[in-house]
Protein backbone atom coordinates (compact mmCIF):
# COMPACT_ATOMS: atom_id res chain seq x y z
CA UNK A 1 0.00 0.00 0.00
CA UNK A 2 1.38 3.35 -0.99
CA UNK A 3 -0.54 5.40 1.55
CA UNK A 4 0.54 4.81 5.12
CA UNK A 5 -2.15 3.87 7.56
CA UNK A 6 -3.13 6.48 10.05
CA UNK A 7 -3.81 5.01 13.45
CA UNK A 8 -6.42 6.49 15.71
CA UNK A 9 -7.76 5.87 19.18
CA UNK A 10 -10.37 3.30 18.20
CA UNK A 11 -8.04 1.32 15.99
CA UNK A 12 -5.66 -0.99 17.67
CA UNK A 13 -2.40 -0.44 15.76
CA UNK A 14 -1.77 -3.50 13.67
CA UNK A 15 1.82 -4.52 13.21
CA UNK A 16 2.15 -4.12 9.50
CA UNK A 17 4.15 -6.68 7.64
CA UNK A 18 5.81 -5.92 4.33
CA UNK A 19 3.24 -4.46 1.96
CA UNK A 20 1.22 -6.69 -0.34
CA UNK A 21 1.71 -9.87 1.64
CA UNK A 22 -1.04 -12.44 1.25
CA UNK A 23 -3.45 -12.54 4.18
CA UNK A 24 -6.07 -14.91 2.74
CA UNK A 25 -5.39 -17.72 0.35
CA UNK A 26 -8.20 -19.68 -1.22
CA UNK A 27 -6.85 -22.85 -2.74
CA UNK A 28 -8.95 -24.83 -5.23
CA UNK A 29 -12.13 -24.54 -3.20
CA UNK A 30 -15.24 -26.30 -4.44
CA UNK A 31 -18.63 -26.36 -2.78
CA UNK A 32 -21.30 -28.86 -3.76
CA UNK A 33 -24.77 -28.75 -2.25
CA UNK A 34 -27.03 -31.74 -2.43
CA UNK A 35 -30.43 -30.62 -3.58
CA UNK A 36 -33.52 -32.62 -2.75
CA UNK A 37 -33.79 -34.53 -6.02
CA UNK A 38 -30.49 -36.30 -5.43
CA UNK A 39 -28.96 -33.82 -7.81
CA UNK A 40 -25.82 -32.00 -6.88
CA UNK A 41 -25.63 -28.29 -7.27
CA UNK A 42 -22.10 -27.07 -7.79
CA UNK A 43 -22.07 -23.70 -6.06
CA UNK A 44 -18.34 -23.14 -6.36
CA UNK A 45 -15.98 -24.87 -8.69
CA UNK A 46 -12.25 -24.86 -8.20
CA UNK A 47 -11.81 -21.34 -6.86
CA UNK A 48 -8.31 -20.10 -6.18
CA UNK A 49 -7.73 -16.56 -5.04
CA UNK A 50 -5.17 -14.67 -3.00
CA UNK A 51 -6.11 -11.58 -1.07
CA UNK A 52 -3.40 -9.18 -0.04
CA UNK A 53 -3.26 -7.53 3.30
CA UNK A 54 -4.88 -4.11 3.35
CA UNK A 55 -6.65 -4.58 0.04
CA UNK A 56 -10.30 -3.84 -0.64
CA UNK A 57 -11.45 -6.74 -2.78
CA UNK A 58 -14.96 -7.10 -4.18
CA UNK A 59 -16.48 -10.32 -5.36
CA UNK A 60 -18.93 -9.42 -8.10
CA UNK A 61 -21.36 -11.73 -9.79
CA UNK A 62 -24.97 -12.57 -10.53
CA UNK A 63 -27.14 -14.03 -7.79
CA UNK A 64 -26.57 -17.74 -7.43
CA UNK A 65 -22.91 -17.63 -8.42
CA UNK A 66 -21.80 -18.70 -4.98
CA UNK A 67 -20.13 -15.43 -4.05
CA UNK A 68 -21.67 -15.36 -0.59
CA UNK A 69 -20.77 -19.01 -0.05
CA UNK A 70 -17.17 -18.14 -0.82
CA UNK A 71 -17.31 -15.44 1.85
CA UNK A 72 -18.84 -17.87 4.37
CA UNK A 73 -16.00 -20.30 3.70
CA UNK A 74 -13.44 -17.60 4.46
CA UNK A 75 -15.47 -16.75 7.58
CA UNK A 76 -15.32 -20.39 8.65
CA UNK A 77 -19.13 -20.57 8.83
CA UNK A 78 -19.27 -23.14 6.03
CA UNK A 79 -16.75 -25.87 5.25
CA UNK A 80 -15.85 -26.35 1.60
CA UNK A 81 -16.54 -29.70 -0.03
CA UNK A 82 -12.96 -29.74 -1.25
CA UNK A 83 -9.99 -27.43 -1.22
CA UNK A 84 -9.01 -25.14 1.62
CA UNK A 85 -8.95 -21.53 2.68
CA UNK A 86 -6.11 -20.14 4.74
CA UNK A 87 -5.72 -17.07 6.86
CA UNK A 88 -2.12 -15.98 7.30
CA UNK A 89 -0.95 -19.44 6.29
CA UNK A 90 -3.21 -21.25 8.76
CA UNK A 91 -6.08 -23.39 7.53
CA UNK A 92 -9.48 -21.90 8.40
CA UNK A 93 -11.45 -24.42 10.45
CA UNK A 94 -14.10 -22.21 12.01
CA UNK A 95 -15.15 -18.65 12.76
CA UNK A 96 -12.83 -16.41 14.72
CA UNK A 97 -12.47 -12.79 15.79
CA UNK A 98 -9.72 -12.24 13.21
CA UNK A 99 -12.44 -12.30 10.51
CA UNK A 100 -15.42 -10.06 11.22
CA UNK A 101 -18.62 -10.50 9.21
CA UNK A 102 -21.16 -7.84 8.28
CA UNK A 103 -24.32 -9.36 6.83
CA UNK A 104 -27.02 -7.98 4.56
CA UNK A 105 -29.54 -8.98 7.26
CA UNK A 106 -27.64 -6.93 9.90
CA UNK A 107 -28.01 -9.80 12.40
CA UNK A 108 -27.93 -7.42 15.35
CA UNK A 109 -28.84 -8.70 18.81
CA UNK A 110 -32.33 -7.19 19.19
CA UNK A 111 -32.34 -7.49 23.00
CA UNK A 112 -29.26 -5.27 23.25
CA UNK A 113 -29.12 -1.54 22.75
CA UNK A 114 -26.84 0.00 20.14
CA UNK A 115 -24.15 0.36 22.80
CA UNK A 116 -24.77 -3.18 24.06
CA UNK A 117 -24.38 -4.57 20.57
CA UNK A 118 -21.13 -2.74 19.90
CA UNK A 119 -19.70 -3.65 23.32
CA UNK A 120 -20.54 -7.32 22.91
CA UNK A 121 -17.35 -8.30 21.09
CA UNK A 122 -14.89 -6.39 23.29
CA UNK A 123 -16.60 -7.72 26.44
CA UNK A 124 -16.36 -11.25 25.06
CA UNK A 125 -12.64 -10.67 24.60
CA UNK A 126 -12.33 -9.81 28.26
CA UNK A 127 -11.89 -6.07 27.93
CA UNK A 128 -13.02 -4.22 31.06
CA UNK A 129 -16.51 -2.73 30.85
CA UNK A 130 -15.41 0.89 31.20
CA UNK A 131 -12.79 0.56 28.51
CA UNK A 132 -15.07 -1.39 26.18
CA UNK A 133 -17.73 1.25 26.64
CA UNK A 134 -15.39 4.13 25.86
CA UNK A 135 -14.14 2.38 22.71
CA UNK A 136 -17.67 1.50 21.66
CA UNK A 137 -18.95 5.03 22.14
CA UNK A 138 -16.13 6.33 19.93
CA UNK A 139 -17.02 3.79 17.25
CA UNK A 140 -20.72 4.65 17.42
CA UNK A 141 -19.77 8.28 16.90
CA UNK A 142 -17.53 7.31 14.00
CA UNK A 143 -20.35 5.54 12.17
CA UNK A 144 -22.54 8.60 12.71
CA UNK A 145 -24.88 7.34 15.41
CA UNK A 146 -23.96 9.55 18.33
CA UNK A 147 -27.08 10.03 20.43
CA UNK A 148 -28.50 6.62 19.55
CA UNK A 149 -26.45 4.63 22.07
CA UNK A 150 -29.47 3.56 24.11
CA UNK A 151 -31.80 2.76 21.23
CA UNK A 152 -32.87 -0.79 20.50
CA UNK A 153 -32.38 -2.12 16.95
CA UNK A 154 -36.14 -2.16 16.33
CA UNK A 155 -36.16 1.62 16.73
CA UNK A 156 -33.59 2.14 13.95
CA UNK A 157 -33.89 2.35 10.17
CA UNK A 158 -32.16 -0.18 7.91
CA UNK A 159 -29.24 2.11 7.19
CA UNK A 160 -28.73 2.83 10.89
CA UNK A 161 -28.87 -0.88 11.71
CA UNK A 162 -26.15 -1.57 9.20
CA UNK A 163 -24.04 1.21 10.72
CA UNK A 164 -24.43 -0.48 14.10
CA UNK A 165 -23.51 -3.84 12.58
CA UNK A 166 -20.35 -2.32 11.10
CA UNK A 167 -19.41 -0.72 14.41
CA UNK A 168 -20.12 -3.97 16.26
CA UNK A 169 -17.73 -5.83 13.99
CA UNK A 170 -15.03 -3.14 14.00
CA UNK A 171 -15.20 -3.14 17.81
CA UNK A 172 -13.38 -6.43 18.17
CA UNK A 173 -10.67 -5.44 15.71
CA UNK A 174 -10.89 -8.17 13.10
CA UNK A 175 -7.98 -8.22 10.69
CA UNK A 176 -10.32 -8.88 7.79
CA UNK A 177 -13.81 -7.50 7.25
CA UNK A 178 -16.14 -9.91 5.47
CA UNK A 179 -19.02 -7.92 4.02
CA UNK A 180 -21.87 -9.92 2.53
CA UNK A 181 -23.90 -7.57 0.30
CA UNK A 182 -24.06 -5.24 3.29
CA UNK A 183 -25.97 -2.49 1.49
CA UNK A 184 -28.17 -4.79 -0.57
CA UNK A 185 -31.27 -4.27 1.56
CA UNK A 186 -31.06 -0.48 1.62
CA UNK A 187 -32.64 2.15 -0.60
CA UNK A 188 -30.44 3.86 -3.21
CA UNK A 189 -29.87 7.05 -1.25
CA UNK A 190 -28.95 5.31 2.01
CA UNK A 191 -26.80 2.91 0.07
CA UNK A 192 -24.76 5.74 -1.48
CA UNK A 193 -24.27 7.39 1.89
CA UNK A 194 -23.10 4.20 3.49
CA UNK A 195 -20.71 3.51 0.63
CA UNK A 196 -19.16 6.95 1.13
CA UNK A 197 -18.91 6.50 4.87
CA UNK A 198 -17.47 3.01 4.56
CA UNK A 199 -14.77 4.36 2.22
CA UNK A 200 -13.95 7.18 4.65
CA UNK A 201 -13.66 4.76 7.54
CA UNK A 202 -11.68 2.28 5.50
CA UNK A 203 -9.26 4.86 4.15
CA UNK A 204 -8.24 5.69 7.71
CA UNK A 205 -6.89 2.29 8.67
CA UNK A 206 -7.04 0.14 5.53
CA UNK A 207 -8.18 -3.10 6.97
CA UNK A 208 -8.41 -5.95 4.51
CA UNK A 209 -11.97 -6.09 3.17
CA UNK A 210 -13.66 -8.86 1.25
CA UNK A 211 -16.87 -7.34 -0.11
CA UNK A 212 -19.57 -9.33 -1.85
CA UNK A 213 -21.89 -7.40 -4.16
CA UNK A 214 -23.89 -7.70 -7.34
CA UNK A 215 -23.58 -4.01 -8.15
CA UNK A 216 -20.88 -3.07 -10.68
CA UNK A 217 -20.82 0.60 -9.62
CA UNK A 218 -20.42 -0.32 -6.00
CA UNK A 219 -17.59 -2.77 -6.72
CA UNK A 220 -15.63 -0.29 -8.89
CA UNK A 221 -16.21 2.64 -6.55
CA UNK A 222 -14.97 0.84 -3.45
CA UNK A 223 -12.38 -1.68 -4.55
CA UNK A 224 -8.73 -2.11 -5.36
CA UNK A 225 -9.59 -5.33 -7.07
CA UNK A 226 -12.80 -6.78 -8.50
CA UNK A 227 -13.18 -10.52 -8.76
CA UNK A 228 -15.77 -11.27 -11.44
CA UNK A 229 -17.64 -14.52 -11.02
CA UNK A 230 -19.93 -16.47 -13.30
CA UNK A 231 -22.54 -18.93 -12.21
CA UNK A 232 -23.49 -22.59 -12.66
CA UNK A 233 -20.97 -23.58 -11.63
CA UNK A 234 -19.56 -20.64 -9.70
CA UNK A 235 -16.18 -19.80 -11.17
CA UNK A 236 -13.85 -16.84 -11.28
CA UNK A 237 -14.10 -15.24 -14.71
CA UNK A 238 -11.58 -12.54 -14.32
CA UNK A 239 -9.83 -10.45 -11.72
CA UNK A 240 -9.61 -6.75 -12.53
CA UNK A 241 -7.37 -4.29 -10.75
CA UNK A 242 -9.10 -0.97 -10.23
CA UNK A 243 -6.40 1.60 -10.65
CA UNK A 244 -8.14 4.72 -9.41
CA UNK A 245 -6.61 7.23 -7.01
CA UNK A 246 -7.53 7.34 -3.34
CA UNK A 247 -9.01 8.89 -1.36
CA UNK A 248 -11.95 8.56 -3.70
CA UNK A 249 -14.71 11.13 -3.78
CA UNK A 250 -17.95 10.07 -5.32
CA UNK A 251 -18.66 13.32 -7.17
CA UNK A 252 -15.18 13.35 -8.71
CA UNK A 253 -15.15 9.67 -9.51
CA UNK A 254 -18.48 9.60 -11.33
CA UNK A 255 -17.08 12.16 -13.80
CA UNK A 256 -13.77 10.35 -14.17
CA UNK A 257 -13.55 8.62 -17.58
CA UNK A 258 -11.36 5.89 -16.08
CA UNK A 259 -14.09 5.02 -13.58
CA UNK A 260 -16.71 5.05 -16.32
CA UNK A 261 -14.56 2.79 -18.48
CA UNK A 262 -14.19 0.23 -15.70
CA UNK A 263 -17.96 0.14 -15.18
CA UNK A 264 -18.75 -0.11 -18.87
CA UNK A 265 -16.08 -2.74 -19.51
CA UNK A 266 -17.25 -4.94 -16.66
CA UNK A 267 -20.89 -4.62 -17.67
CA UNK A 268 -19.99 -5.50 -21.24
CA UNK A 269 -18.08 -8.56 -20.12
CA UNK A 270 -21.12 -9.79 -18.22
CA UNK A 271 -23.40 -9.01 -21.18
CA UNK A 272 -21.24 -10.87 -23.67
CA UNK A 273 -21.65 -14.13 -21.85
CA UNK A 274 -24.82 -16.18 -22.28
CA UNK A 275 -25.89 -15.71 -18.71
CA UNK A 276 -27.66 -12.75 -17.28
CA UNK A 277 -25.29 -10.17 -15.88
CA UNK A 278 -25.39 -8.78 -12.41
CA UNK A 279 -28.26 -6.44 -11.59
CA UNK A 280 -30.46 -8.13 -14.20
Amino acid sequence: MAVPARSSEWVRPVARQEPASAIIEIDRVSQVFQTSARKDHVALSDISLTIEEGAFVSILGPSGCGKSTLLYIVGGFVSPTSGAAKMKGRAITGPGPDRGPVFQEFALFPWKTVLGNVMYGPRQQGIRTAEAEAQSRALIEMVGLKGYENFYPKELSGGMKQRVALARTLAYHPEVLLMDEPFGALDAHTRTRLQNDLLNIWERDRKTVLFVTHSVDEAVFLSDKVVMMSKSPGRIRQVIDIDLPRPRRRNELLLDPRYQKYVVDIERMFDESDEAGPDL
Partner: protein
Amino acid sequence: MMSSAAMAKRAAPVLACIGLLAVWQVASLALKNDSFPTAIEAIRAVPSILGDKESLINILASLRRMAMGFGAAVLFSIPLGLLMGRNAAVAAFFNPLLMVIYPVPKAALMPIIMLWLGVGDLTKTLVIFLGVSLPVIYHSFQGAKAVQEKMLWSGAAMGLSPLQRLVRIVLPAALPEILTGCRTGLVLALITMITSEMIARQSGAGNILFNALDMGQYDTVFAMIIIVGAMGICLDAIFERVRAKLVRWSEPQFDIPLSFS
Protein backbone atom coordinates in the same frame (compact mmCIF):
# COMPACT_ATOMS: atom_id res chain seq x y z
CA MET B 1 -54.25 12.72 30.95
CA MET B 2 -55.39 9.49 29.42
CA SER B 3 -57.10 9.67 26.05
CA SER B 4 -60.65 8.43 25.94
CA ALA B 5 -59.55 5.48 23.79
CA ALA B 6 -56.94 4.45 26.36
CA MET B 7 -59.47 4.85 29.14
CA ALA B 8 -61.98 2.67 27.31
CA LYS B 9 -59.26 0.07 26.82
CA ARG B 10 -58.49 0.06 30.53
CA ALA B 11 -62.11 -0.04 31.58
CA ALA B 12 -63.10 -2.80 29.14
CA PRO B 13 -62.10 -5.81 31.30
CA VAL B 14 -63.72 -4.29 34.39
CA LEU B 15 -66.92 -3.65 32.43
CA ALA B 16 -66.81 -7.22 31.16
CA CYS B 17 -66.61 -8.47 34.77
CA ILE B 18 -69.50 -6.30 35.90
CA GLY B 19 -71.55 -7.37 32.88
CA LEU B 20 -70.90 -11.04 33.58
CA LEU B 21 -71.90 -10.66 37.23
CA ALA B 22 -75.05 -8.78 36.22
CA VAL B 23 -76.11 -11.52 33.80
CA TRP B 24 -75.40 -14.08 36.53
CA GLN B 25 -77.51 -12.11 39.02
CA VAL B 26 -80.48 -11.79 36.64
CA ALA B 27 -80.29 -15.42 35.51
CA SER B 28 -80.16 -16.67 39.07
CA LEU B 29 -83.12 -14.53 40.15
CA ALA B 30 -85.10 -15.71 37.13
CA LEU B 31 -84.33 -19.42 37.60
CA LYS B 32 -84.85 -19.49 41.38
CA ASN B 33 -82.84 -22.68 41.73
CA ASP B 34 -81.27 -23.74 45.08
CA SER B 35 -78.08 -24.92 43.39
CA PHE B 36 -77.60 -21.57 41.59
CA PRO B 37 -77.11 -18.78 44.11
CA THR B 38 -77.11 -15.17 42.97
CA ALA B 39 -73.86 -13.37 42.26
CA ILE B 40 -74.32 -11.22 45.36
CA GLU B 41 -74.78 -14.29 47.60
CA ALA B 42 -71.64 -15.87 46.14
CA ILE B 43 -69.58 -12.72 46.55
CA ARG B 44 -70.80 -12.42 50.14
CA ALA B 45 -69.41 -15.89 50.86
CA VAL B 46 -65.91 -14.94 49.65
CA PRO B 47 -64.72 -13.09 52.80
CA SER B 48 -65.77 -15.93 55.08
CA ILE B 49 -63.66 -18.39 53.06
CA LEU B 50 -60.66 -16.10 52.97
CA GLY B 51 -61.14 -15.36 56.68
CA ASP B 52 -61.15 -19.03 57.60
CA LYS B 53 -57.71 -20.27 58.62
CA GLU B 54 -58.33 -23.83 57.44
CA SER B 55 -59.42 -22.65 53.97
CA LEU B 56 -56.52 -20.26 53.72
CA ILE B 57 -54.03 -23.03 54.51
CA ASN B 58 -55.67 -25.13 51.80
CA ILE B 59 -55.50 -22.39 49.21
CA LEU B 60 -51.89 -21.58 50.05
CA ALA B 61 -51.00 -25.27 49.78
CA SER B 62 -52.54 -25.25 46.31
CA LEU B 63 -50.55 -22.21 45.30
CA ARG B 64 -47.36 -23.74 46.65
CA ARG B 65 -47.80 -26.90 44.58
CA MET B 66 -48.64 -24.83 41.56
CA ALA B 67 -45.53 -22.68 41.97
CA MET B 68 -43.32 -25.75 42.41
CA GLY B 69 -44.83 -27.61 39.47
CA PHE B 70 -44.68 -24.55 37.25
CA GLY B 71 -41.13 -23.63 38.29
CA ALA B 72 -39.79 -27.14 37.80
CA ALA B 73 -41.51 -27.42 34.43
CA VAL B 74 -40.06 -24.13 33.19
CA LEU B 75 -36.55 -25.02 34.38
CA PHE B 76 -36.78 -28.38 32.65
CA SER B 77 -38.63 -27.40 29.49
CA ILE B 78 -36.77 -24.29 28.34
CA PRO B 79 -33.34 -25.97 28.01
CA LEU B 80 -34.90 -29.04 26.40
CA GLY B 81 -36.90 -26.96 23.92
CA LEU B 82 -33.90 -24.81 23.03
CA LEU B 83 -31.70 -27.88 22.49
CA MET B 84 -34.37 -29.43 20.30
CA GLY B 85 -34.63 -26.24 18.29
CA ARG B 86 -30.91 -26.06 17.60
CA ASN B 87 -30.01 -29.73 17.32
CA ALA B 88 -31.72 -31.94 14.77
CA ALA B 89 -30.72 -35.16 16.56
CA VAL B 90 -32.22 -34.04 19.88
CA ALA B 91 -35.38 -32.92 18.08
CA ALA B 92 -35.63 -36.22 16.19
CA PHE B 93 -35.40 -38.12 19.48
CA PHE B 94 -37.89 -36.13 21.54
CA ASN B 95 -40.41 -35.04 18.91
CA PRO B 96 -42.21 -38.39 18.46
CA LEU B 97 -42.27 -38.83 22.22
CA LEU B 98 -43.86 -35.44 22.76
CA MET B 99 -46.31 -35.97 19.92
CA VAL B 100 -47.61 -39.05 21.72
CA ILE B 101 -47.78 -37.38 25.13
CA TYR B 102 -49.26 -34.09 23.90
CA PRO B 103 -52.92 -35.06 23.39
CA VAL B 104 -53.12 -37.25 26.51
CA PRO B 105 -54.98 -35.39 29.28
CA LYS B 106 -52.43 -35.19 32.07
CA ALA B 107 -55.13 -35.69 34.69
CA ALA B 108 -55.84 -39.08 33.11
CA LEU B 109 -52.40 -40.18 34.23
CA MET B 110 -53.21 -39.33 37.84
CA PRO B 111 -54.59 -42.68 38.94
CA ILE B 112 -51.32 -44.37 37.93
CA ILE B 113 -49.20 -41.66 39.51
CA MET B 114 -51.28 -41.88 42.68
CA LEU B 115 -50.74 -45.62 42.72
CA TRP B 116 -46.99 -45.13 42.60
CA LEU B 117 -46.45 -41.93 44.54
CA GLY B 118 -49.49 -41.73 46.81
CA VAL B 119 -52.06 -38.95 47.03
CA GLY B 120 -49.73 -36.33 48.52
CA ASP B 121 -48.02 -33.23 47.21
CA LEU B 122 -45.61 -35.11 44.98
CA THR B 123 -48.34 -36.59 42.79
CA LYS B 124 -50.20 -33.32 42.37
CA THR B 125 -47.02 -31.34 41.70
CA LEU B 126 -45.97 -33.90 39.10
CA VAL B 127 -49.28 -33.59 37.28
CA ILE B 128 -48.93 -29.80 37.21
CA PHE B 129 -45.36 -30.25 35.96
CA LEU B 130 -46.59 -32.45 33.11
CA GLY B 131 -49.34 -30.04 32.19
CA VAL B 132 -47.02 -27.03 32.03
CA SER B 133 -44.06 -28.72 30.33
CA LEU B 134 -45.48 -29.33 26.89
CA PRO B 135 -46.46 -25.80 25.85
CA VAL B 136 -43.19 -24.45 27.25
CA ILE B 137 -41.14 -27.07 25.39
CA TYR B 138 -43.07 -26.44 22.22
CA HIS B 139 -42.68 -22.67 22.28
CA SER B 140 -39.01 -22.83 23.30
CA PHE B 141 -38.45 -25.22 20.41
CA GLN B 142 -40.19 -22.91 17.94
CA GLY B 143 -38.35 -19.88 19.29
CA ALA B 144 -34.94 -21.54 19.08
CA LYS B 145 -35.61 -22.82 15.58
CA ALA B 146 -36.48 -19.35 14.36
CA VAL B 147 -33.23 -17.74 15.56
CA GLN B 148 -31.46 -16.13 12.62
CA GLU B 149 -28.45 -18.18 11.56
CA LYS B 150 -26.42 -15.03 10.87
CA MET B 151 -26.95 -13.89 14.45
CA LEU B 152 -25.29 -17.08 15.65
CA TRP B 153 -22.51 -16.64 13.12
CA SER B 154 -21.92 -13.11 14.39
CA GLY B 155 -21.59 -14.55 17.90
CA ALA B 156 -19.28 -17.31 16.70
CA ALA B 157 -17.03 -14.74 15.04
CA MET B 158 -16.77 -12.93 18.38
CA GLY B 159 -15.52 -16.15 19.91
CA LEU B 160 -18.65 -17.50 21.63
CA SER B 161 -18.56 -21.27 22.14
CA PRO B 162 -21.58 -23.39 21.13
CA LEU B 163 -22.81 -23.48 24.75
CA GLN B 164 -22.33 -19.71 25.12
CA ARG B 165 -24.26 -19.19 21.90
CA LEU B 166 -27.13 -21.29 23.25
CA VAL B 167 -27.30 -19.40 26.54
CA ARG B 168 -26.40 -15.91 25.39
CA ILE B 169 -27.89 -15.75 21.91
CA VAL B 170 -30.52 -18.45 21.40
CA LEU B 171 -32.11 -17.98 24.85
CA PRO B 172 -32.60 -14.19 24.66
CA ALA B 173 -33.52 -14.28 20.97
CA ALA B 174 -36.18 -16.91 21.67
CA LEU B 175 -37.39 -15.24 24.87
CA PRO B 176 -40.55 -13.63 23.44
CA GLU B 177 -41.68 -17.01 22.14
CA ILE B 178 -40.62 -18.80 25.35
CA LEU B 179 -42.64 -16.40 27.47
CA THR B 180 -45.70 -16.93 25.28
CA GLY B 181 -45.37 -20.62 26.13
CA CYS B 182 -44.92 -19.84 29.82
CA ARG B 183 -48.08 -17.78 29.84
CA THR B 184 -50.07 -20.68 28.41
CA GLY B 185 -48.29 -22.90 30.92
CA LEU B 186 -49.34 -20.69 33.81
CA VAL B 187 -53.03 -21.03 32.98
CA LEU B 188 -52.58 -24.77 32.49
CA ALA B 189 -50.88 -24.94 35.88
CA LEU B 190 -53.99 -23.49 37.50
CA ILE B 191 -56.25 -25.89 35.61
CA THR B 192 -54.20 -28.98 36.45
CA MET B 193 -53.87 -27.79 40.05
CA ILE B 194 -57.67 -27.75 40.55
CA THR B 195 -58.12 -30.96 38.54
CA SER B 196 -55.54 -32.83 40.58
CA GLU B 197 -57.24 -31.74 43.81
CA MET B 198 -60.57 -32.92 42.49
CA ILE B 199 -59.14 -36.38 41.90
CA ALA B 200 -56.96 -36.70 44.96
CA ARG B 201 -59.20 -34.92 47.45
CA GLN B 202 -57.08 -34.31 50.46
CA SER B 203 -56.28 -30.62 50.56
CA GLY B 204 -56.31 -27.54 48.40
CA ALA B 205 -58.70 -25.12 46.74
CA GLY B 206 -60.23 -27.85 44.59
CA ASN B 207 -60.93 -29.87 47.74
CA ILE B 208 -62.80 -27.01 49.42
CA LEU B 209 -64.90 -26.57 46.30
CA PHE B 210 -65.92 -30.21 46.09
CA ASN B 211 -66.50 -30.63 49.80
CA ALA B 212 -68.89 -27.68 49.66
CA LEU B 213 -70.63 -29.26 46.69
CA ASP B 214 -71.05 -32.53 48.63
CA MET B 215 -72.58 -30.66 51.51
CA GLY B 216 -74.86 -28.57 49.33
CA GLN B 217 -73.21 -25.25 50.27
CA TYR B 218 -73.73 -23.78 46.85
CA ASP B 219 -72.81 -20.23 47.78
CA THR B 220 -69.38 -21.55 48.89
CA VAL B 221 -69.01 -23.50 45.64
CA PHE B 222 -69.60 -20.39 43.59
CA ALA B 223 -67.46 -18.26 45.89
CA MET B 224 -64.58 -20.70 45.35
CA ILE B 225 -65.05 -20.45 41.60
CA ILE B 226 -64.80 -16.68 41.96
CA ILE B 227 -61.66 -17.00 44.12
CA VAL B 228 -59.92 -19.43 41.75
CA GLY B 229 -60.91 -17.32 38.77
CA ALA B 230 -59.58 -14.18 40.43
CA MET B 231 -56.34 -16.00 41.24
CA GLY B 232 -55.96 -16.92 37.60
CA ILE B 233 -56.64 -13.40 36.41
CA CYS B 234 -54.19 -11.91 38.93
CA LEU B 235 -51.41 -14.39 38.14
CA ASP B 236 -51.84 -13.81 34.43
CA ALA B 237 -51.82 -10.04 34.86
CA ILE B 238 -48.64 -10.19 36.96
CA PHE B 239 -46.99 -12.48 34.46
CA GLU B 240 -47.99 -10.24 31.57
CA ARG B 241 -46.39 -7.25 33.29
CA VAL B 242 -43.15 -9.13 33.81
CA ARG B 243 -43.23 -10.42 30.26
CA ALA B 244 -43.78 -6.99 28.75
CA LYS B 245 -40.78 -5.69 30.75
CA LEU B 246 -38.50 -8.54 29.72
CA VAL B 247 -39.19 -8.28 26.01
CA ARG B 248 -39.79 -4.57 25.54
CA TRP B 249 -36.99 -4.69 22.96
CA SER B 250 -38.83 -7.09 20.69
CA GLU B 251 -40.77 -6.19 17.58
CA PRO B 252 -44.44 -5.76 18.42
CA GLN B 253 -46.41 -8.80 17.38
CA PHE B 254 -50.10 -9.41 17.01
CA ASP B 255 -51.13 -8.71 20.53
CA ILE B 256 -54.59 -9.62 21.68
CA PRO B 257 -55.10 -7.77 24.94
CA LEU B 258 -56.13 -10.83 26.92
CA SER B 259 -55.10 -9.59 30.29
CA PHE B 260 -55.84 -7.08 32.99
CA SER B 261 -52.40 -5.52 33.03
